[in-house]
């Protein structure tokens, strides 16, 4: 049993002890509990902040002296522990910072490496271009080559777009979807209809599937494929719009390897979702038939055409304007 007076003194000093611990640690609202011959100073969360031993017997002054002595030692240890934790925290932050710097350095390094590769590649080609003396006689040999974008034909009147499309499909020997577009001009439409019906040049290869896309519910359009007529044109002669067609593309039973779009489709009245079309043409051979007579186009037509082509830039490597009649660039 501990002397009562020593308890009273002790309790008086405990408040001092708490104040000292609070001062040292920066914690507030600490509490103390006396048990098992010691003082347990705790944080409101219940975490033990420090522990001081109460000496039994002897002069109270000595007890308190010893008590404070031990508390000082404990507090020093606590400080050391806190300092250690702080140090660890700093170290961790420093490590994280270092990692961040290293990551950034890696990104910069990769970028520089890529730039270096590009420069090296450029220098290699430059060297290749000028190193070996070459003198080649130009023979103007023409050959069909496969490049991503072809061309030609804004004018529906001549049916050039569809004729060009037919040529591509025949050469490719592939299933192809051909998209064309007509407006409301009945004369143009009738003439084009007549050409397609009466001129074998406009009849497509058997293996090719072709169709034309017209504005919703407007002019009738000659069917270029009986198969498509069965599938896509209902009994009431309601013709599918570009949008209708695109909406069903994912379910169409044929995998078109080639998509041919005549530049007439540039005259978009909003019925054609070009964004959707652009997604569809990814990974397919795409031919866009555009105008061979660029000089003859009006500014508005050029603007429309460029706007149309811009939709496909992300999906098409090279966009070239080619005079298809000569097979040469213009």
């Amino acid at each position, binding site marked *: 049993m501990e002397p009562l007076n020593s308890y009273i003194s002790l309790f008086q000093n405990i408040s001092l002890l708490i104040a000292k611990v609070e001062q040292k640690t920066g914690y507030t609202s600490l509490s103390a509990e006396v048990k098992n011959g010691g003082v347990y100073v705790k944080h409101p969360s219940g975490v033990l902040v420090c522990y001081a031993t109460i000496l039994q017997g002897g002069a109270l002054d000595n007890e308190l002296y010893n008590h404070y002595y031990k508390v000082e030692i404990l507090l020093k240890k606590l400080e050391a522990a806190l300092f250690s934790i702080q140090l660890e925290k700093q170290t961790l932050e420093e490590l994280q910072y270092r990692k961040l710097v290293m990551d950034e350095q890696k990104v910069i390094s990769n970028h520089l490496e890529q730039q270096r590769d590009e420069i090296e590649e*450029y220098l290699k*080609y*430059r060297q*290749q*271009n*000028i190193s*070996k*003396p*070459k*003198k*080649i*006689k*130009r*023979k*103007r*040999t*023409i*050959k*069909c*080559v*496969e*490049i991503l974008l*072809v*061309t030609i034909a804004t004018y529906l009147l001549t049916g050039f777009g569809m004729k060009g499309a037919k040529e*591509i499909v025949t*050469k*490719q020997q592939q299933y192809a979807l051909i998209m064309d577009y007509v407006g409301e001009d009945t004369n143009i439409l009738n003439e084009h209809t007549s050409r397609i019906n009466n001129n074998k040049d406009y009849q497509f290869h058997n293996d090719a599937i072709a169709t034309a896309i017209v504005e919703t519910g407007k002019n009738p359009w000659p069917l270029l494929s009986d198969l498509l007529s069965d599938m896509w044109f209902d009994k009431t002669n309601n013709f599918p719009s570009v949008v209708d067609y695109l909406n069903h593309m994912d379910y169409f039973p044929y995998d078109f390897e080639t998509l041919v779009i005549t530049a007439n489709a540039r005259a978009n009245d909003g019925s054609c979702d070009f964004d959707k079309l652009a997604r569809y043409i990814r990974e397919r051979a795409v031919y866009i038939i555009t105008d061979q007579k660029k000089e003859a186009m009006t500014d508005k037509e050029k603007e429309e055409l*460029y706007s149309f*082509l*811009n939709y496909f*830039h992300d999906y098409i*490597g*090279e*966009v*070239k*304007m*080619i005079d*298809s009649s000569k*097979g*040469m*660039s213009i």
Partner: protein
Amino acid sequence: MVEKEIIVIDDKEYFVLNELTYEKTNYVYLVSEKDLKDFLIMKSVFEREEEYLVNLDNEEEFDILFTLFQKELKENKK
């Protein structure tokens, strides 16, 4: 498929992707059919009314023509 002019150099086929005139000389941009990264820039010269394609003279000439061709290709894309 599209018709393009073909030039055979060191047994490799290049097609004429583009042509331009710079300081009164006609230059051609040739691209290998098999590897689009493999390209050559050559200039056209006439000897006894025959047209020949010859190498560029130096690195500076290549730098200028490469920039001009790239610019033209980008403008054609617009």
